[in-house]
Protein backbone atom coordinates (compact mmCIF):
# COMPACT_ATOMS: atom_id res chain seq x y z
CA UNK A 1 0.00 0.00 0.00
CA UNK A 2 2.69 2.44 0.99
CA UNK A 3 4.91 1.70 -1.95
CA UNK A 4 1.98 2.42 -4.24
CA UNK A 5 1.26 5.75 -2.59
CA UNK A 6 4.92 6.67 -2.74
CA UNK A 7 5.08 6.04 -6.45
CA UNK A 8 1.97 8.07 -7.14
CA UNK A 9 3.24 10.98 -5.11
CA UNK A 10 6.22 11.36 -7.38
CA UNK A 11 3.98 11.73 -10.46
CA UNK A 12 1.96 14.78 -11.46
CA UNK A 13 0.00 16.58 -8.76
CA UNK A 14 -3.52 15.22 -8.25
CA UNK A 15 -5.60 16.88 -5.56
CA UNK A 16 -3.66 19.74 -4.04
CA UNK A 17 -5.03 21.95 -1.30
CA UNK A 18 -2.77 24.88 -0.74
CA UNK A 19 -2.95 27.05 2.37
CA UNK A 20 -6.74 27.33 2.40
CA UNK A 21 -8.41 29.70 4.79
CA UNK A 22 -12.17 29.50 5.34
CA UNK A 23 -14.41 32.07 6.97
CA UNK A 24 -18.05 31.42 7.81
CA UNK A 25 -20.57 34.24 7.84
CA UNK A 26 -17.78 36.76 7.21
CA UNK A 27 -16.58 36.50 10.80
CA UNK A 28 -15.84 32.97 11.96
CA UNK A 29 -12.37 31.83 10.99
CA UNK A 30 -12.54 28.05 10.74
CA UNK A 31 -9.56 27.00 8.62
CA UNK A 32 -6.35 28.89 9.21
CA UNK A 33 -4.30 27.78 6.26
CA UNK A 34 -4.66 24.09 5.55
CA UNK A 35 -2.43 22.41 2.98
CA UNK A 36 -2.65 18.81 1.93
CA UNK A 37 -2.22 16.53 -1.03
CA UNK A 38 -3.89 13.38 -2.24
CA UNK A 39 -1.94 11.35 -4.79
CA UNK A 40 -3.71 9.52 -7.60
CA UNK A 41 -5.05 6.26 -6.23
CA UNK A 42 -4.27 7.20 -2.65
CA UNK A 43 -6.38 6.88 0.47
CA UNK A 44 -5.66 9.84 2.68
CA UNK A 45 -7.12 10.26 6.14
CA UNK A 46 -7.95 13.62 7.64
CA UNK A 47 -8.04 13.19 11.38
CA UNK A 48 -8.87 15.37 14.30
CA UNK A 49 -11.35 16.08 17.03
CA UNK A 50 -14.79 17.66 16.76
CA UNK A 51 -14.62 21.13 15.29
CA UNK A 52 -11.04 20.73 14.09
CA UNK A 53 -12.10 21.64 10.55
CA UNK A 54 -12.22 18.25 8.83
CA UNK A 55 -15.66 18.69 7.30
CA UNK A 56 -14.92 22.28 6.38
CA UNK A 57 -11.79 21.19 4.55
CA UNK A 58 -13.77 18.68 2.51
CA UNK A 59 -16.48 21.21 1.76
CA UNK A 60 -13.89 23.77 0.74
CA UNK A 61 -12.70 21.26 -1.84
CA UNK A 62 -16.14 20.21 -3.07
CA UNK A 63 -17.43 23.80 -2.97
CA UNK A 64 -20.44 22.97 -0.85
CA UNK A 65 -19.29 25.71 1.51
CA UNK A 66 -21.03 28.49 -0.31
CA UNK A 67 -24.44 26.99 0.44
CA UNK A 68 -23.54 27.27 4.14
CA UNK A 69 -22.41 30.86 3.98
CA UNK A 70 -18.80 29.81 4.16
CA UNK A 71 -16.14 31.25 1.93
CA UNK A 72 -12.60 30.36 0.96
CA UNK A 73 -10.78 33.60 1.55
CA UNK A 74 -7.20 32.52 0.92
CA UNK A 75 -5.34 29.73 -0.74
CA UNK A 76 -6.22 27.49 -3.63
CA UNK A 77 -7.49 24.06 -4.52
CA UNK A 78 -6.42 22.31 -7.67
CA UNK A 79 -7.28 18.99 -9.19
CA UNK A 80 -5.03 17.43 -11.83
CA UNK A 81 -3.17 20.69 -12.18
CA UNK A 82 -6.23 22.87 -12.72
CA UNK A 83 -7.68 25.34 -10.26
CA UNK A 84 -11.10 24.17 -9.13
CA UNK A 85 -11.97 26.56 -6.31
CA UNK A 86 -14.38 28.62 -8.40
CA UNK A 87 -16.30 25.67 -9.85
CA UNK A 88 -19.82 24.81 -8.84
CA UNK A 89 -20.34 21.41 -7.18
CA UNK A 90 -22.10 20.33 -10.36
CA UNK A 91 -19.05 21.13 -12.48
CA UNK A 92 -16.74 19.47 -9.98
CA UNK A 93 -18.77 16.26 -10.02
CA UNK A 94 -18.48 16.27 -13.80
CA UNK A 95 -14.71 16.45 -13.42
CA UNK A 96 -14.72 13.47 -11.11
CA UNK A 97 -14.64 14.82 -7.57
CA UNK A 98 -17.67 14.07 -5.41
CA UNK A 99 -18.37 14.42 -1.72
CA UNK A 100 -20.27 11.99 0.47
CA UNK A 101 -21.56 14.20 3.22
CA UNK A 102 -21.36 13.66 6.93
CA UNK A 103 -24.55 12.17 8.31
CA UNK A 104 -25.27 10.36 5.04
CA UNK A 105 -27.93 12.71 3.71
CA UNK A 106 -29.91 10.21 1.68
CA UNK A 107 -33.04 11.47 -0.01
CA UNK A 108 -35.32 9.85 2.50
CA UNK A 109 -38.55 9.85 0.51
CA UNK A 110 -36.90 8.35 -2.54
CA UNK A 111 -36.31 4.63 -2.76
CA UNK A 112 -32.77 3.31 -2.50
CA UNK A 113 -32.69 2.76 -6.24
CA UNK A 114 -33.98 6.26 -6.98
CA UNK A 115 -31.33 7.60 -4.63
CA UNK A 116 -28.68 5.82 -6.62
CA UNK A 117 -30.13 7.07 -9.89
CA UNK A 118 -29.90 10.70 -8.77
CA UNK A 119 -26.17 10.12 -8.45
CA UNK A 120 -25.96 9.72 -12.22
CA UNK A 121 -27.55 13.13 -12.83
CA UNK A 122 -24.42 14.64 -14.30
CA UNK A 123 -23.87 11.77 -16.72
CA UNK A 124 -25.65 11.24 -19.99
CA UNK A 125 -26.37 7.54 -19.94
CA UNK A 126 -28.57 5.29 -22.01
CA UNK A 127 -31.03 3.03 -20.23
CA UNK A 128 -28.70 0.07 -20.61
CA UNK A 129 -25.68 1.98 -19.32
CA UNK A 130 -27.71 3.17 -16.37
CA UNK A 131 -28.70 -0.39 -15.53
CA UNK A 132 -25.07 -1.38 -15.80
CA UNK A 133 -23.99 1.42 -13.46
CA UNK A 134 -26.61 0.27 -10.96
CA UNK A 135 -25.38 -3.31 -11.19
CA UNK A 136 -21.87 -2.14 -10.44
CA UNK A 137 -23.03 -0.43 -7.25
CA UNK A 138 -25.08 -3.48 -6.26
CA UNK A 139 -22.00 -5.61 -6.81
CA UNK A 140 -20.17 -3.67 -4.11
CA UNK A 141 -23.21 -3.26 -1.89
CA UNK A 142 -25.34 -6.39 -2.22
CA UNK A 143 -27.40 -5.19 0.73
CA UNK A 144 -28.64 -2.24 -1.28
CA UNK A 145 -30.01 -4.54 -3.93
CA UNK A 146 -32.19 -6.26 -1.37
CA UNK A 147 -33.52 -2.90 -0.18
CA UNK A 148 -33.75 -1.23 -3.57
CA UNK A 149 -37.51 -0.64 -3.39
CA UNK A 150 -37.55 0.68 0.19
CA UNK A 151 -37.69 4.36 0.95
CA UNK A 152 -34.23 5.35 2.09
CA UNK A 153 -35.62 6.98 5.23
CA UNK A 154 -36.74 3.60 6.51
CA UNK A 155 -33.43 1.80 6.06
CA UNK A 156 -30.78 1.33 8.74
CA UNK A 157 -27.89 3.69 9.32
CA UNK A 158 -25.41 1.34 7.70
CA UNK A 159 -27.61 0.92 4.65
CA UNK A 160 -27.98 4.67 4.39
CA UNK A 161 -24.22 5.11 4.50
CA UNK A 162 -23.88 2.50 1.77
CA UNK A 163 -26.60 4.24 -0.19
CA UNK A 164 -24.75 7.55 0.10
CA UNK A 165 -21.48 6.02 -1.08
CA UNK A 166 -23.26 4.07 -3.82
CA UNK A 167 -24.99 7.23 -4.97
CA UNK A 168 -21.62 8.93 -5.28
CA UNK A 169 -20.27 5.95 -7.23
CA UNK A 170 -23.04 6.41 -9.78
CA UNK A 171 -21.34 9.64 -10.84
CA UNK A 172 -18.30 7.56 -11.85
CA UNK A 173 -15.92 9.63 -9.71
CA UNK A 174 -12.15 9.46 -9.69
CA UNK A 175 -11.99 10.90 -6.24
CA UNK A 176 -14.40 10.64 -3.33
CA UNK A 177 -14.38 12.99 -0.38
CA UNK A 178 -15.79 10.81 2.35
CA UNK A 179 -16.92 12.64 5.45
CA UNK A 180 -17.16 10.69 8.67
CA UNK A 181 -18.43 7.39 7.24
CA UNK A 182 -18.30 5.67 10.62
CA UNK A 183 -20.58 8.13 12.38
CA UNK A 184 -23.20 6.40 14.48
CA UNK A 185 -22.55 2.94 13.06
CA UNK A 186 -21.84 -0.35 14.77
CA UNK A 187 -18.19 -1.46 14.64
CA UNK A 188 -18.90 -4.38 12.28
CA UNK A 189 -20.71 -2.07 9.87
CA UNK A 190 -17.86 0.43 10.01
CA UNK A 191 -15.48 -2.39 9.17
CA UNK A 192 -17.71 -3.48 6.30
CA UNK A 193 -17.82 0.01 4.84
CA UNK A 194 -14.08 0.51 5.09
CA UNK A 195 -13.52 -2.84 3.42
CA UNK A 196 -15.59 -1.62 0.48
CA UNK A 197 -13.64 1.63 0.39
CA UNK A 198 -10.48 -0.41 0.23
CA UNK A 199 -11.89 -2.58 -2.53
CA UNK A 200 -12.99 0.41 -4.59
CA UNK A 201 -9.57 1.90 -4.19
CA UNK A 202 -7.76 -1.27 -5.17
CA UNK A 203 -10.00 -2.41 -8.03
CA UNK A 204 -11.35 0.79 -9.52
CA UNK A 205 -8.49 3.08 -8.60
CA UNK A 206 -10.81 5.57 -6.89
CA UNK A 207 -8.88 7.95 -4.65
CA UNK A 208 -10.25 8.81 -1.24
CA UNK A 209 -9.87 11.70 1.12
CA UNK A 210 -11.64 10.63 4.27
CA UNK A 211 -12.37 12.70 7.30
CA UNK A 212 -12.67 10.55 10.37
CA UNK A 213 -12.83 10.78 14.12
CA UNK A 214 -12.32 7.07 14.34
CA UNK A 215 -8.55 7.40 14.08
CA UNK A 216 -7.83 3.73 14.67
CA UNK A 217 -9.87 2.44 11.75
CA UNK A 218 -8.97 5.29 9.44
CA UNK A 219 -5.24 4.79 9.89
CA UNK A 220 -5.60 1.10 9.23
CA UNK A 221 -7.14 1.67 5.80
CA UNK A 222 -5.39 4.88 4.72
CA UNK A 223 -1.87 5.14 3.42
CA UNK A 224 -1.29 8.70 4.50
CA UNK A 225 -2.73 10.88 7.23
CA UNK A 226 -3.06 14.51 8.25
CA UNK A 227 -4.00 15.56 11.74
CA UNK A 228 -6.00 18.72 12.04
CA UNK A 229 -6.38 20.82 15.14
CA UNK A 230 -8.21 24.10 15.40
CA UNK A 231 -8.14 24.68 11.68
CA UNK A 232 -4.47 23.84 11.18
CA UNK A 233 -2.56 20.77 10.14
CA UNK A 234 -0.46 19.89 13.19
CA UNK A 235 0.99 16.61 12.00
CA UNK A 236 1.25 14.56 8.84
CA UNK A 237 2.84 11.34 7.78
CA UNK A 238 2.54 7.83 6.45
CA UNK A 239 -0.35 6.04 8.09
CA UNK A 240 1.96 3.44 9.61
CA UNK A 241 4.22 6.09 11.13
CA UNK A 242 1.24 7.92 12.58
CA UNK A 243 -0.03 4.69 14.04
CA UNK A 244 3.30 4.13 15.76
CA UNK A 245 3.74 7.73 16.80
CA UNK A 246 3.63 8.10 20.59
CA UNK A 247 1.85 11.46 20.53
CA UNK A 248 -0.87 10.24 18.18
CA UNK A 249 -1.34 7.17 20.27
CA UNK A 250 -1.78 9.32 23.27
CA UNK A 251 -3.91 12.16 21.90
CA UNK A 252 -6.13 10.37 19.46
CA UNK A 253 -6.11 6.73 20.30
CA UNK A 254 -6.16 7.30 24.05
CA UNK A 255 -3.29 4.88 24.57
CA UNK A 256 -0.12 5.53 26.43
CA UNK A 257 2.68 3.63 28.04
CA UNK A 258 1.36 4.61 31.50
CA UNK A 259 -2.14 3.40 30.70
CA UNK A 260 -5.03 5.74 29.87
CA UNK A 261 -4.61 9.35 30.87
CA UNK A 262 -7.41 11.45 32.18
CA UNK A 263 -9.14 13.65 29.67
CA UNK A 264 -8.12 16.84 31.41
CA UNK A 265 -4.46 15.98 31.27
CA UNK A 266 -4.58 15.06 27.62
CA UNK A 267 -6.24 18.29 26.73
CA UNK A 268 -3.66 20.30 28.60
CA UNK A 269 -0.80 18.47 26.96
CA UNK A 270 -2.32 18.96 23.60
CA UNK A 271 -2.60 22.67 24.08
CA UNK A 272 1.06 22.99 25.03
CA UNK A 273 2.03 20.87 22.09
CA UNK A 274 0.29 23.22 19.69
CA UNK A 275 2.24 26.21 20.95
CA UNK A 276 5.44 24.31 20.41
CA UNK A 277 4.62 23.25 16.87
Amino acid sequence: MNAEAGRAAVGEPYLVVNNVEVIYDHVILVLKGVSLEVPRGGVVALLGANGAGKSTTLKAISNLLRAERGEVTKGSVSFKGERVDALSPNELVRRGVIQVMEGRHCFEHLTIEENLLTGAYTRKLSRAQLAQALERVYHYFPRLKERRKSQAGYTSGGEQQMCAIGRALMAAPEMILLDEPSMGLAPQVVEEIFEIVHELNAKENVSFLLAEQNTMVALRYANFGYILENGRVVMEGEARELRENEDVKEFYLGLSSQGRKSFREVKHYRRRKRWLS
Partner: protein
Amino acid sequence: MQFFLEVLIGGLLAGMLYALVALGFVLIFKASGVFNFAQGAMVFFAALTFVGLTERLPQWFGFSPEWAGLFWIALLLTAAIMVLFAWLVERFMLRKLVNQPAITLFMATIGLTYLIEGVAQGMWGAMVRGLDLGISDEPVMWLLERHNLMISKFDLVAAAVAGVLVAVLAFFFQYTKVGRALRAVADDHQAALSVGIPLQRIWVIVWAVAGFVAIVAGLVWGSRNGVQFALTFTALKALPVLILGGLTSVPGAIVGGLIIGASEKLAEVYLGPYVGGGIDSWFPYVLALVFLLIRPEGLFGEKHIDRV
Protein backbone atom coordinates in the same frame (compact mmCIF):
# COMPACT_ATOMS: atom_id res chain seq x y z
CA MET B 1 -81.50 10.99 -7.70
CA GLN B 2 -81.24 12.96 -10.91
CA PHE B 3 -80.69 16.11 -8.94
CA PHE B 4 -78.20 14.50 -6.61
CA LEU B 5 -76.12 13.32 -9.55
CA GLU B 6 -76.16 16.73 -11.13
CA VAL B 7 -74.96 18.36 -7.95
CA LEU B 8 -72.32 15.70 -7.44
CA ILE B 9 -70.94 15.90 -10.94
CA GLY B 10 -71.04 19.67 -10.92
CA GLY B 11 -69.15 19.59 -7.65
CA LEU B 12 -66.56 17.15 -8.93
CA LEU B 13 -65.93 19.26 -11.99
CA ALA B 14 -65.58 22.39 -9.90
CA GLY B 15 -63.23 20.38 -7.73
CA MET B 16 -60.95 19.77 -10.70
CA LEU B 17 -60.56 23.53 -10.97
CA TYR B 18 -59.56 23.77 -7.33
CA ALA B 19 -57.14 20.95 -7.94
CA LEU B 20 -55.60 22.93 -10.76
CA VAL B 21 -54.67 25.74 -8.40
CA ALA B 22 -53.54 23.33 -5.70
CA LEU B 23 -51.24 21.68 -8.21
CA GLY B 24 -49.12 24.80 -8.46
CA PHE B 25 -48.54 24.73 -4.72
CA VAL B 26 -47.67 21.05 -4.74
CA LEU B 27 -45.10 21.47 -7.49
CA ILE B 28 -43.12 24.14 -5.74
CA PHE B 29 -43.47 22.52 -2.35
CA LYS B 30 -42.23 19.21 -3.69
CA ALA B 31 -39.19 20.67 -5.32
CA SER B 32 -38.08 23.27 -2.85
CA GLY B 33 -39.94 22.59 0.37
CA VAL B 34 -41.47 26.05 0.24
CA PHE B 35 -45.11 26.78 0.63
CA ASN B 36 -45.44 29.31 -2.17
CA PHE B 37 -47.84 31.92 -0.93
CA ALA B 38 -47.53 33.70 -4.27
CA GLN B 39 -49.23 30.94 -6.25
CA GLY B 40 -52.56 32.77 -6.28
CA ALA B 41 -50.87 35.95 -7.42
CA MET B 42 -49.16 33.96 -10.18
CA VAL B 43 -52.55 32.73 -11.39
CA PHE B 44 -53.77 36.31 -11.48
CA PHE B 45 -50.60 37.51 -13.18
CA ALA B 46 -50.75 34.80 -15.82
CA ALA B 47 -54.41 35.41 -16.67
CA LEU B 48 -53.95 39.17 -16.76
CA THR B 49 -50.88 38.91 -18.94
CA PHE B 50 -52.70 36.65 -21.36
CA VAL B 51 -55.71 38.93 -21.61
CA GLY B 52 -53.51 42.00 -21.83
CA LEU B 53 -51.57 40.45 -24.70
CA THR B 54 -54.71 39.50 -26.63
CA GLU B 55 -55.81 43.15 -26.34
CA ARG B 56 -52.53 44.81 -27.17
CA LEU B 57 -50.95 42.51 -29.73
CA PRO B 58 -53.46 43.34 -32.50
CA GLN B 59 -52.96 47.05 -31.79
CA TRP B 60 -49.18 46.79 -31.88
CA PHE B 61 -48.86 44.67 -34.97
CA GLY B 62 -52.01 45.71 -36.75
CA PHE B 63 -53.80 42.42 -37.31
CA SER B 64 -57.38 41.62 -36.66
CA PRO B 65 -58.29 40.63 -33.07
CA GLU B 66 -60.50 37.95 -34.63
CA TRP B 67 -57.52 36.05 -36.06
CA ALA B 68 -57.42 32.48 -34.70
CA GLY B 69 -53.65 32.44 -34.23
CA LEU B 70 -53.85 35.23 -31.69
CA PHE B 71 -54.82 32.83 -28.91
CA TRP B 72 -51.79 30.64 -29.46
CA ILE B 73 -49.36 33.51 -29.85
CA ALA B 74 -50.62 35.12 -26.66
CA LEU B 75 -50.42 31.77 -24.88
CA LEU B 76 -46.86 31.20 -26.03
CA LEU B 77 -45.79 34.68 -25.03
CA THR B 78 -47.42 34.29 -21.63
CA ALA B 79 -45.56 31.02 -21.17
CA ALA B 80 -42.31 32.75 -22.10
CA ILE B 81 -43.04 35.49 -19.58
CA MET B 82 -43.65 32.88 -16.88
CA VAL B 83 -40.27 31.30 -17.66
CA LEU B 84 -38.64 34.70 -17.39
CA PHE B 85 -40.47 35.22 -14.12
CA ALA B 86 -39.18 31.87 -12.82
CA TRP B 87 -35.65 32.84 -13.76
CA LEU B 88 -35.96 36.18 -11.96
CA VAL B 89 -37.35 34.53 -8.84
CA GLU B 90 -34.44 32.11 -8.76
CA ARG B 91 -31.84 34.76 -9.47
CA PHE B 92 -32.98 37.38 -7.01
CA MET B 93 -34.80 35.44 -4.34
CA LEU B 94 -34.09 31.72 -4.05
CA ARG B 95 -30.37 31.92 -4.73
CA LYS B 96 -29.91 34.30 -1.82
CA LEU B 97 -31.87 32.08 0.52
CA VAL B 98 -30.29 28.66 0.00
CA ASN B 99 -30.27 26.62 3.19
CA GLN B 100 -32.40 29.07 5.10
CA PRO B 101 -35.26 27.75 7.20
CA ALA B 102 -38.53 27.14 5.37
CA ILE B 103 -40.23 29.97 7.22
CA THR B 104 -37.77 32.48 5.76
CA LEU B 105 -38.59 31.31 2.26
CA PHE B 106 -42.28 31.40 3.06
CA MET B 107 -41.99 35.03 4.16
CA ALA B 108 -40.14 35.80 0.97
CA THR B 109 -43.02 34.39 -1.07
CA ILE B 110 -45.43 36.64 0.81
CA GLY B 111 -43.33 39.59 -0.26
CA LEU B 112 -43.30 38.20 -3.77
CA THR B 113 -47.10 38.11 -3.75
CA TYR B 114 -47.37 41.85 -3.27
CA LEU B 115 -44.72 42.47 -5.88
CA ILE B 116 -46.50 40.36 -8.49
CA GLU B 117 -49.88 41.90 -7.77
CA GLY B 118 -48.42 45.35 -8.10
CA VAL B 119 -46.47 44.64 -11.25
CA ALA B 120 -49.40 42.86 -12.91
CA GLN B 121 -51.78 45.75 -12.35
CA GLY B 122 -49.14 48.29 -13.17
CA MET B 123 -48.51 46.63 -16.50
CA TRP B 124 -52.03 45.87 -17.60
CA GLY B 125 -54.32 48.08 -15.51
CA ALA B 126 -56.67 47.10 -12.72
CA MET B 127 -60.04 46.88 -14.44
CA VAL B 128 -62.02 43.67 -14.65
CA ARG B 129 -61.77 42.01 -18.04
CA GLY B 130 -63.72 39.30 -19.70
CA LEU B 131 -61.98 36.30 -21.20
CA ASP B 132 -63.62 34.13 -23.80
CA LEU B 133 -61.99 30.82 -24.59
CA GLY B 134 -64.68 29.94 -27.10
CA ILE B 135 -66.10 27.12 -25.00
CA SER B 136 -69.71 27.81 -24.15
CA ASP B 137 -71.02 27.32 -20.65
CA GLU B 138 -74.08 25.32 -21.69
CA PRO B 139 -75.32 21.81 -20.91
CA VAL B 140 -73.89 18.96 -22.92
CA MET B 141 -76.76 18.04 -25.25
CA TRP B 142 -76.49 14.26 -25.39
CA LEU B 143 -76.25 13.96 -21.62
CA LEU B 144 -79.34 16.10 -21.30
CA GLU B 145 -81.30 14.06 -23.84
CA ARG B 146 -80.10 10.61 -22.92
CA HIS B 147 -79.84 10.85 -19.13
CA ASN B 148 -81.63 14.08 -18.44
CA LEU B 149 -78.49 15.45 -16.73
CA MET B 150 -77.49 19.10 -16.87
CA ILE B 151 -73.70 19.11 -17.05
CA SER B 152 -71.84 22.17 -18.25
CA LYS B 153 -69.68 21.69 -21.31
CA PHE B 154 -67.23 24.24 -20.05
CA ASP B 155 -66.77 22.41 -16.76
CA LEU B 156 -66.19 19.16 -18.60
CA VAL B 157 -63.52 20.63 -20.85
CA ALA B 158 -61.80 22.36 -17.94
CA ALA B 159 -61.80 19.15 -15.94
CA ALA B 160 -60.37 17.22 -18.88
CA VAL B 161 -57.58 19.76 -19.29
CA ALA B 162 -56.79 19.54 -15.59
CA GLY B 163 -56.81 15.75 -15.79
CA VAL B 164 -54.34 15.66 -18.65
CA LEU B 165 -52.09 18.15 -16.93
CA VAL B 166 -52.01 16.05 -13.79
CA ALA B 167 -51.26 12.84 -15.65
CA VAL B 168 -48.36 14.49 -17.45
CA LEU B 169 -46.97 15.99 -14.26
CA ALA B 170 -47.30 12.77 -12.28
CA PHE B 171 -45.39 10.93 -14.99
CA PHE B 172 -42.78 13.65 -15.11
CA PHE B 173 -42.14 13.50 -11.38
CA GLN B 174 -42.10 9.75 -11.08
CA TYR B 175 -40.20 8.59 -14.11
CA THR B 176 -37.96 11.25 -15.58
CA LYS B 177 -34.46 12.19 -14.58
CA VAL B 178 -35.36 15.80 -13.94
CA GLY B 179 -38.47 14.77 -12.00
CA ARG B 180 -36.36 12.56 -9.78
CA ALA B 181 -33.90 15.38 -9.28
CA LEU B 182 -36.79 17.65 -8.28
CA ARG B 183 -37.87 15.21 -5.62
CA ALA B 184 -34.30 14.84 -4.46
CA VAL B 185 -33.96 18.61 -4.08
CA ALA B 186 -37.18 18.68 -2.07
CA ASP B 187 -35.77 16.14 0.35
CA ASP B 188 -32.34 17.62 0.88
CA HIS B 189 -30.92 20.70 -0.83
CA GLN B 190 -27.38 20.09 0.23
CA ALA B 191 -27.23 16.43 -0.63
CA ALA B 192 -28.68 17.26 -4.03
CA LEU B 193 -25.90 19.79 -4.52
CA SER B 194 -23.30 17.27 -3.42
CA VAL B 195 -24.25 14.73 -6.09
CA GLY B 196 -24.04 17.41 -8.73
CA ILE B 197 -27.67 18.36 -9.23
CA PRO B 198 -27.63 22.01 -10.28
CA LEU B 199 -30.08 23.48 -7.77
CA GLN B 200 -30.45 26.74 -9.60
CA ARG B 201 -31.54 25.17 -12.86
CA ILE B 202 -33.94 22.84 -11.04
CA TRP B 203 -35.60 25.81 -9.34
CA VAL B 204 -36.04 27.68 -12.57
CA ILE B 205 -37.63 24.57 -14.09
CA VAL B 206 -40.02 24.01 -11.23
CA TRP B 207 -41.10 27.64 -10.96
CA ALA B 208 -41.61 27.72 -14.69
CA VAL B 209 -43.76 24.58 -14.56
CA ALA B 210 -45.74 26.09 -11.68
CA GLY B 211 -46.08 29.14 -13.90
CA PHE B 212 -47.55 27.03 -16.72
CA VAL B 213 -50.01 25.48 -14.31
CA ALA B 214 -50.89 29.01 -13.19
CA ILE B 215 -51.59 29.95 -16.81
CA VAL B 216 -54.02 27.08 -17.25
CA ALA B 217 -55.69 27.78 -13.92
CA GLY B 218 -55.80 31.49 -14.70
CA LEU B 219 -57.41 30.98 -18.10
CA VAL B 220 -60.03 28.58 -16.81
CA TRP B 221 -60.92 30.59 -13.73
CA GLY B 222 -60.60 33.87 -15.59
CA SER B 223 -63.02 32.88 -18.31
CA ARG B 224 -65.44 31.77 -15.63
CA ASN B 225 -65.38 34.72 -13.24
CA GLY B 226 -63.63 37.39 -15.28
CA VAL B 227 -59.98 38.31 -15.01
CA GLN B 228 -59.80 40.42 -11.90
CA PHE B 229 -57.96 40.83 -8.67
CA ALA B 230 -60.27 38.31 -6.98
CA LEU B 231 -58.40 35.60 -8.91
CA THR B 232 -55.66 35.80 -6.29
CA PHE B 233 -58.17 34.41 -3.80
CA THR B 234 -58.49 31.17 -5.74
CA ALA B 235 -55.34 30.33 -3.82
CA LEU B 236 -57.36 30.30 -0.64
CA LYS B 237 -59.68 27.73 -2.15
CA ALA B 238 -56.67 25.55 -2.73
CA LEU B 239 -55.69 25.44 0.94
CA PRO B 240 -58.28 22.89 2.11
CA VAL B 241 -57.53 20.89 -1.01
CA LEU B 242 -53.87 20.77 -0.05
CA ILE B 243 -54.61 19.79 3.51
CA LEU B 244 -56.83 16.96 2.34
CA GLY B 245 -54.65 15.70 -0.44
CA GLY B 246 -51.28 16.28 1.14
CA LEU B 247 -48.84 19.00 0.22
CA THR B 248 -46.46 16.69 -1.56
CA SER B 249 -48.69 14.61 -3.78
CA VAL B 250 -49.79 15.43 -7.31
CA PRO B 251 -52.59 12.84 -7.32
CA GLY B 252 -53.43 14.03 -3.80
CA ALA B 253 -54.14 17.50 -5.15
CA ILE B 254 -56.64 16.00 -7.58
CA VAL B 255 -58.41 13.73 -5.14
CA GLY B 256 -58.45 16.51 -2.57
CA GLY B 257 -59.92 18.86 -5.13
CA LEU B 258 -62.63 16.37 -6.07
CA ILE B 259 -63.58 15.76 -2.46
CA ILE B 260 -63.69 19.45 -1.62
CA GLY B 261 -65.63 20.33 -4.78
CA ALA B 262 -68.21 17.60 -4.36
CA SER B 263 -68.67 17.97 -0.61
CA GLU B 264 -69.07 21.73 -0.68
CA LYS B 265 -71.78 21.57 -3.36
CA LEU B 266 -73.59 18.68 -1.69
CA ALA B 267 -73.36 20.37 1.69
CA GLU B 268 -74.73 23.58 0.24
CA VAL B 269 -77.69 21.81 -1.34
CA TYR B 270 -78.58 19.36 1.41
CA LEU B 271 -77.34 20.98 4.62
CA GLY B 272 -77.51 24.60 3.56
CA PRO B 273 -81.26 25.07 3.99
CA TYR B 274 -81.06 24.13 7.69
CA VAL B 275 -78.56 26.85 8.52
CA GLY B 276 -79.75 29.48 6.10
CA GLY B 277 -77.49 28.65 3.14
CA GLY B 278 -74.12 29.98 2.05
CA ILE B 279 -72.18 27.22 3.71
CA ASP B 280 -70.13 26.35 0.64
CA SER B 281 -67.84 29.26 1.42
CA TRP B 282 -66.73 27.87 4.75
CA PHE B 283 -67.53 24.17 4.59
CA PRO B 284 -64.20 23.17 2.93
CA TYR B 285 -62.24 24.81 5.71
CA VAL B 286 -64.15 22.95 8.39
CA LEU B 287 -63.58 19.74 6.50
CA ALA B 288 -59.88 20.54 6.28
CA LEU B 289 -59.75 21.29 9.97
CA VAL B 290 -61.32 17.96 10.85
CA PHE B 291 -58.88 16.29 8.53
CA LEU B 292 -55.91 18.01 10.14
CA LEU B 293 -56.89 16.46 13.44
CA ILE B 294 -57.16 12.97 12.02
CA ARG B 295 -54.46 12.75 9.38
CA PRO B 296 -52.20 15.81 9.32
CA GLU B 297 -50.06 14.69 6.39
CA GLY B 298 -53.13 14.45 4.13
CA LEU B 299 -54.43 11.50 2.17
CA PHE B 300 -51.40 11.04 -0.02
CA GLY B 301 -48.84 13.27 1.62
CA GLU B 302 -45.41 12.07 2.56
CA LYS B 303 -45.14 11.06 6.14
CA HIS B 304 -42.40 12.73 8.03
CA ILE B 305 -39.89 9.95 8.49
CA ASP B 306 -38.41 9.76 11.95
CA ARG B 307 -35.87 7.12 12.75
CA VAL B 308 -35.98 5.99 16.34
